[in-house]
């Protein structure tokens, strides 16, 4: 363990010492409030001229102790905390957590709720990828893409708001199903959006795909070998842009993803441009999944049939004594989850998102650990940027698509 520094003061020294011979190298402190780090990431960069010789990421500025907080909430209350882990993909986190707890409870989720969850998880992917594309492009200098992407993102947020009352932290999933059924007119709105969305993706591509400046800034930049990525814990679109067809939705289908017809896009160039191509293709595939979910939505209940876990309908609560008692019990003390442990992995927009939930048989989780994709991906930053030019750092780390809330939890 290193000696503690002075509280509240940055130590502008690197772990390794300056070389004794040769030209003196410059240490550049990028962040923690750098606009291109999308959150509070600090990169300590050692430069020889314009070439990066050493890089050390410094994280933890957004650590909020969510894992600790989960241990004093009931299982249902903890859902609202999972939203805050990755604030660009809240529903993916809800989904992973709910699936883990439902596995412990061995709860059967009705098909309609499962399909709805798939649909919303894909909307989350669209939302997340659009923010990524907008900010990644603006970092490199393509200003107008930002405005185009946020136009569609705004519509997605309105779709979220319509069913949950919230634009970002929807907390819409419940253990055992969904909070409510979507309101009247929601499907029409989704249909309108999905009909127009593919043409909007074409617009983004018109702006970027053949743009010589974009190509110049992204092609051949940010290479990191597949072996390094696997060894360093990188997941998601980064691996797919290196030619590895890995996607938890296909490898271990959850929440009826096996009933949907979609492709896992891959590229082999393994650079910033390839990652851009993969994510653009994922936008199209997600839109395809949403359309399938909307058109083939099975009918049936929205919640699992387990009165110990799932809140009763309002109508029943007001007319049946038993339902009222269950309601009271669930709201005041929660529900007990059988002893055990489970690690559930889903494919979040950023990669492998795993929730490790340990239960000791009481109504609060004994331990919740989030294996977040951004944390694993960020670890590869030094390997990726060492040896390249400082001007390419922004493009390289932008292509990783990390969210610092997701990293620090």
């Amino acid at each position: 363990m290193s000696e503690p520094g002075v509280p509240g003061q940055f130590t502008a020294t690197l772990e390794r010492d300056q070389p004794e011979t040769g030209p003196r190298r410059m240490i550049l402190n990028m962040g923690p409030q750098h606009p291109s780090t999308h959150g509070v990431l600090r990169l300590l960069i050692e430069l020889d001229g314009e070439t990066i010789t050493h890089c050390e990421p410094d994280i933890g500025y957004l650590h909020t102790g969510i894992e600790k907080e989960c241990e004093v909430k009931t299982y249902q209350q903890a859902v609202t905390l999972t939203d805050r882990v990755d604030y660009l993909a809240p529903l993916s986190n809800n989904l992973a957590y709910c699936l883990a707890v439902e596995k412990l409870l061995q709860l059967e989720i009705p098909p309609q709720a499962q399909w709805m969850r798939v649909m919303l998880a894909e909307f989350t992917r669209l939302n997340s990828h659009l923010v990524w594309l907008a900010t990644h492009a603006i970092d490199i200098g393509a200003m107008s893409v930002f405005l185009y992407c946020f136009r569609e993102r705004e519509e997605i947020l309105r779709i979220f708001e319509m069913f949950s009352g919230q634009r970002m932290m929807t907390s819409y999933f419940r253990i055992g199903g969904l909070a409510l059924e979507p309101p009247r007119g929601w499907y029409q709105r989704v249909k309108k959006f999905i009909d127009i969305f593919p043409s909007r993706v074409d617009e983004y591509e018109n702006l970027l795909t053949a743009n010589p400046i974009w190509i110049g800034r992204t092609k051949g930049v940010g290479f990191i070998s597949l072996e390094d990525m696997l060894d360093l814990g990188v997941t998601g679109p980064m691996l797919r842009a290196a030619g590895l067809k890995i996607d938890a939705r296909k490898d271990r289908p959850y929440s009826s993803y096996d009933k949907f017809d979609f492709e896992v896009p891959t590229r082999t160039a393994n650079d910033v441009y390839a990652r851009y191509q993969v994510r653009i293709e994922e936008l199209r595939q997600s839109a395809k999944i949403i359309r399938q979910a909307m058109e083939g939505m099975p009918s049936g209940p929205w919640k699992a049939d387990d009165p110990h876990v799932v809140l009763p309908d309002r109508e029943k609560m007001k007319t049946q004594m038993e339902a009222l008692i269950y309601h009271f019990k669930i709201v005041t003390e929660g529900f007990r989850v059988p002893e055990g442990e489970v690690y559930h992995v889903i494919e979040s927009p950023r990669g492998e998102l795993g929730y490790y939930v340990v239960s000791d048989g009481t109504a609060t989780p004994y331990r919740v650990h989030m294996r977040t994709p951004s944390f694993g991906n960020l670890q590869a930053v030094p390997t990726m940027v060492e040896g390249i030019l400082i001007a390419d750092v922004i493009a390289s780390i932008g292509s990783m698509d990390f969210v610092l809330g997701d990293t620090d939890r």
Partner: protein
Amino acid sequence: MLPENLQEYSTAAAVDRFDADALTGGKHALGELTLEIVPAKIVSVCGFLKYDQKFVRLSAVTAVDRFPAEPRFEVVYHLHSIERNERLRLKCRLPGQDPAIDSVTSVWRSANWYEREVFDLFGIQFRNHPNLKRIMMPDDWEGYPLRKDYPVTGSRV
């Protein structure tokens, strides 16, 4: 020795063949396989699992505090084999007094940050770790927040 309830699982059998003393127990529950490993053997077992059994990815490292039970800590490793489409959980139990275990950074480089996080939040030492210092909390922080005897709310007096 291979526990009876694990005999039908090839990974468990392979670990047992590799080193019969390393495996002390385990279970297969809810479709997930857990193997309990002797802490002193974790690096060799992980090396075997990565290079021989194709668990090329270390998905996560975390810990569980069983305070006040003894042995108090469980260090939990989640492994992933892409080729076999399999996941595996390894578990090592450590005492509450000076918990320490060998680092697996020599097997997977990704363990670097994962183990730093466990060190930071649980106070478990990882021997031979290249850079064992706090990662989430400030460097001068006292205590280990995810331990069960660490309060959730309140201010420092």
